[in-house]
C-alpha cells in the first residue's frame, strides 16, 4: 500500500543519490589536474521494488518502485593501456636518461671547439714542425714543451671529467635503488589496503589511482612490470625477479664492485645482480658502464700509442748538447700522462745525430708522427680520436632521436588513456547540471508530499475540532 511517508523516502533517496553524484562531480573537477587521477562516475540503479497490494490493485498489477540507489562508483580505467603505456614510457625514459648523460659527456669533451683534443694534439705536432724549421731557437723549444704539457693536460682533464661524470651517474643509480625500495614498500602497503577495501565490497578508487601512479613511476625508473591478481593486489617484478608479492617486498641493495668501485644493484634476498630491462636506470647503467667507459678506454688506447710513439722517436734523437733524448712523456694512461719533468728546452731531441745543432731530422720525424698510423690504432691518432668523437656523436644522436620518438609513442598512449580516464570539464558541467536538475525535481516532489500532508493534517474538514 502506498504510504505518504514511503513517497517522502522515495524523494529523499533521489535527493541523497543526486547530492552524492554532485560530490563525485566535484571530486572529478577538483582532481582535473591530479597526475594519475582517473575520473569516477556514479552508477545508479533503481532500488528494490515492492509488490503492489491491497487497494492499489489486484494481484499482478505490477511492482512499485522505491526510488534510486547508488550501485557503485565507477573508475574509468583501461588496464591494457596501462601495461602498454608503462612499457613504452620505460623505453622513453631510458633514452632520455642516456641522452642527458651523453650530452654532458659530449660537452665535456668539447671536440668541435678550439679546445678539442685534436686541435691540441695538432698544435703539439705543429710545434715540432716549427722547431724542425729552426732547431736552435730556444723559444720554439720552450713552445714544444708548453704544447706537450697542453696535450697531457687535455688528456688528464678529459679522463678526470669522464670519471666525474661516471661517479655522478653512480650516485643517481644509488638513489634509484633507494627509490625502488621505497616505492615497493608503498605499493605493498597499498596492496594491503586495497585488498582489505575490496574484501568488504567497496571500491578503493583513489587508492588504485595512487598505486597505478606508483607503478607508472616504477616502470619508468626500472622497467618493472606488474600483474593484478584476483584479490586486487598487484605482483611487481623487475626483469623476472619479484619485487612486490602481496604485502611483501623483496628489496634491493647497492654493492660497490671492482675494478672502479662503481655501484651495482643486487637483490637482498639472493645477491643476484639486478639488470633493469629498460627505464631510467638502464639508461644510467648504459651511459656509465658502456658509453663513458668506452670513451675512457679509447682515450687510454690513444694515450698509450701517443706516449710510446713520441718516446720512441724522441729517445732515438739527440738534444742541443749532444746527449741522447730522454723519454718525452711519462705515465701510462690518460689520467697519468705528463711531460717528463726533467726536460728543459735544450733537452729536446731535435737532431738525429749527436752534436749537429742544425740537424732537425728527429724533430721532423716527431712532427710526422701526426701522419703515422700506430698498429694499435690502425689509423693516425687524429683519425682514431675523430672516429671516437663521431661514434659518440652518432650514439647521442640516436639516443636523442629515440627519446623523441619513444616520447611521441608514450604521449600517444598516454593521450589514449587520458581520453578514457581524464576529466573533461564540459562533461562535468553537463553532469552537474543533470544532477542539479534531478535534485531540484526531487525536492519539488518532496514539496508536493509536504502539501499533501498539510492537506491531510490541516485541511481535511473540521469534524474533529
Amino acid at each position, binding site marked *: 500500500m502506498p504510504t505518504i511517508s514511503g513517497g517522502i523516502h522515495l524523494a529523499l533517496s533521489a535527493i541523497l543519490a543526486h547530492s552524492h553524484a554532485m560530490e563525485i562531480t566535484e571530486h572529478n573537477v577538483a582532481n582535473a589536474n591530479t597526475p594519475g587521477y582517473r575520473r569516477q562516475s556514479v552508477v545508479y540503479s533503481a532500488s528494490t521494488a515492492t509488490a503492489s497490494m491491497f487497494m492499489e490493485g489486484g494481484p499482478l498489477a505490477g511492482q512499485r518502485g522505491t526510488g534510486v540507489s547508488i550501485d557503485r562508483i565507477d573508475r574509468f580505467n583501461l588496464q591494457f593501456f596501462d601495461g602498454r603505456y608503462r612499457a613504452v614510457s620505460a623505453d622513453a625514459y631510458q633514452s632520455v636518461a642516456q641522452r642527458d648523460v*651523453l650530452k654532458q659527456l*659530449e660537452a665535456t669533451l668539447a671536440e668541435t671547439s678550439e679546445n678539442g683534443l685534436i686541435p691540441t694534439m*695538432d698544435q703539439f705536432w705543429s710545434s715540432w714542425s716549427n722547431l724542425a724549421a729552426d732547431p736552435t731557437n730556444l723559444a720554439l723549444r720552450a713552445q714544444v714543451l708548453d704544447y706537450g704539457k697542453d696535450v697531457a693536460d687535455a688528456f688528464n682533464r678529459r679522463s678526470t671529467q669522464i670519471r666525474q661524470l661516471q661517479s655522478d651517474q653512480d650516485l643517481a643509480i644509488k638513489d634509484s635503488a633507494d627509490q625502488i625500495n621505497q616505492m615497493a614498500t608503498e605499493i605493498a602497503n597499498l596492496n594491503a589496503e586495497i585488498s582489505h577495501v575490496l574484501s568488504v565490497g567497496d571500491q578503493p578508487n583513489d587508492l588504485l589511482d595512487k598505486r597505478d601512479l606508483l607503478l607508472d613511476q616504477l616502470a619508468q625508473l626500472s622497467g618493472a612490470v606488474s600483474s593484478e591478481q584476483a584479490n586486487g593486489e598487484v605482483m611487481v617484478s623487475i626483469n623476472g625477479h619479484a619485487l612486490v608479492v602481496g604485502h611483501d617486498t623483496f628489496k634491493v641493495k647497492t654493492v660497490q664492485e671492482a675494478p672502479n668501485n662503481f655501484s651495482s644493484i643486487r637483490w637482498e634476498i639472493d645477491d643476484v645482480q639486478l639488470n633493469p630491462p629498460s627505464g631510467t636506470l638502464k639508461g644510467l647503467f648504459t651511459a656509465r658502464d658502456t658509453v663513458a667507459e668506452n670513451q675512457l678506454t679509447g682515450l687510454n688506447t690513444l694515450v698509450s700509442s701517443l706516449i710510446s710513439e713520441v718516446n720512441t722517436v724522441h729517445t732515438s734523437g739527440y738534444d742541443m748538447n749532444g746527449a741522447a733524448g730522454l723519454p718525452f712523456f711519462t705515465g701510462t694512461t690518460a689520467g697519468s700522462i705528463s711531460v717528463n719533468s726533467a726536460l728543459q728546452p735544450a733537452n729536446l731531441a731535435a737532431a738525429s745525430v*749527436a752534436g749537429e745543432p742544425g740537424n732537425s*731530422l728527429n724533430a721532423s720525424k716527431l712532427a710526422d708522427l701526426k701522419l703515422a698510423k700506430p698498429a694499435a690504432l690502425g689509423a693516425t691518432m*687524429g683519425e682514431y680520436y675523430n672516429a671516437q*668523437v663521431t661514434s659518440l656523436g652518432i650514439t647521442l644522436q640516436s639516443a636523442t632521436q629515440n627519446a623523441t620518438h619513444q616520447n611521441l609513442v608514450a604521449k600517444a598512449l598516454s593521450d589514449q588513456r*587520458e581520453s578514457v580516464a581524464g576529466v*573533461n*570539464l564540459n562533461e562535468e558541467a553537463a553532469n552537474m547540471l543533470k544532477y542539479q536538475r534531478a535534485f531540484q525535481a526531487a525536492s519539488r516532489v518532496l514539496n508536493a508530499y509536504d502539501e499533501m500532508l498539510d492537506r491531510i493534517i490541516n485541511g481535511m474538514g473540521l469534524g474533529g475540532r
Partner: protein
Amino acid sequence: MRITQLMMTNGAIQHMADNQEMMHKLQERIATGKNFASASDDPVNASISLGLRSSLKNIQNYLDTNEQVADWMNASEFSLEKLEEVSNKAQNLILRGLNDSLSGAERKNALAPDMRELLQQALEFANMKHNDQFLFAGVYTSTQPFVLDESGAAPTIVYQPRNLALPTAPPPGINRAIQRTIAPNQTISINVMGESVLKDFLQGLSDAQQALLADDRTALQNSLTAVKLGLVKMDEARTSNGARLRQVQSVGDYLEKSQIEAKSLLSQKEDTNMAEAVMMLKGQETTYQAVLQVSQRAISSTSLFDLLR
C-alpha cells in the same frame, strides 16, 4: 576521441616547446654561423670537418716551414752573389798583378792591401749568419765556418765546423747537409756546402795576397786558377740552390692551393647558409606566432562552466 582539459593544456605546452626548440636551433645556427655546435648535431659532417681542420693545420705547418726554408735559401743566394762579385774583383786584381809593367813594390803596396780587403769581404760573406745561424757551416750552424789562420808561415783558411759531441775528432770530410721537410715525405737540403764550394776560393784569395806581398808571379798565377775555379763552383752552387728554391716555391704554391680548397670545403661543411637559415627562422617565427595564438585559445577557451547561469 574524447578530449580532456589536461590533453588540451599538455598539447598546447608541447607544441609551444617544440616550436621554441626549433627556433632556438635556428637562432644558434645563425648566431654562431656554424651548422652544428657539437658532433651529435651532424656526426658525419662533424667528422669531416674535424679531419679538414687537422689537415689545414698540417698545411699551415708546411707553409710556415716553406717560408723559413725559402728565407734561408734566399740568404744563401744573396751571400753567393756577393761572393761572386768579390771573386770578379779579385780576378781583375790578380790579372793586374800579373801585368809585367807593374813593379814588385807596386804589387806589395798597392795591390796586396786591396786583396787583403777583398779577402776580408769574402770571409765576411762566407761567415754570413741568417737568423743567428751560420749559412755555410753545414749542420753545425753555431760554429763560425771560416777562419784565417795566420799563425803559420803561410796563412791558411781553416774550416772549423765539427761535431760538437766529438770535439777531438777531425771534422768530417764533407759538409753535412741541413735537411728540412717541406711537404709530406718531401725532404730537401737547404744549405750550400760551404767547405767544398768556398774553402778553396778563400784560400786562393789568401794565397793571392801572399803572392802579391812576395811578388811571386807563379804563385799569383796559381791563385788565379783557384779563384776562377771558385767562381765556377759558386755558379754551380747558385744554380743548384736556385733550382731547389724553385722546388720549394712550387711546393708552396701547391700547398696554398690545397689550403684554399680545404678551407672552402670546410666552410661548405660547417658554415651556415645565412640566407637559408634566416628564411627558415622567419618561417618558424610565423609558425610560432600561430601556435601561440592557437594555444592561447585552446587553454583559455571557455568551458561550459563559464556559460552556466
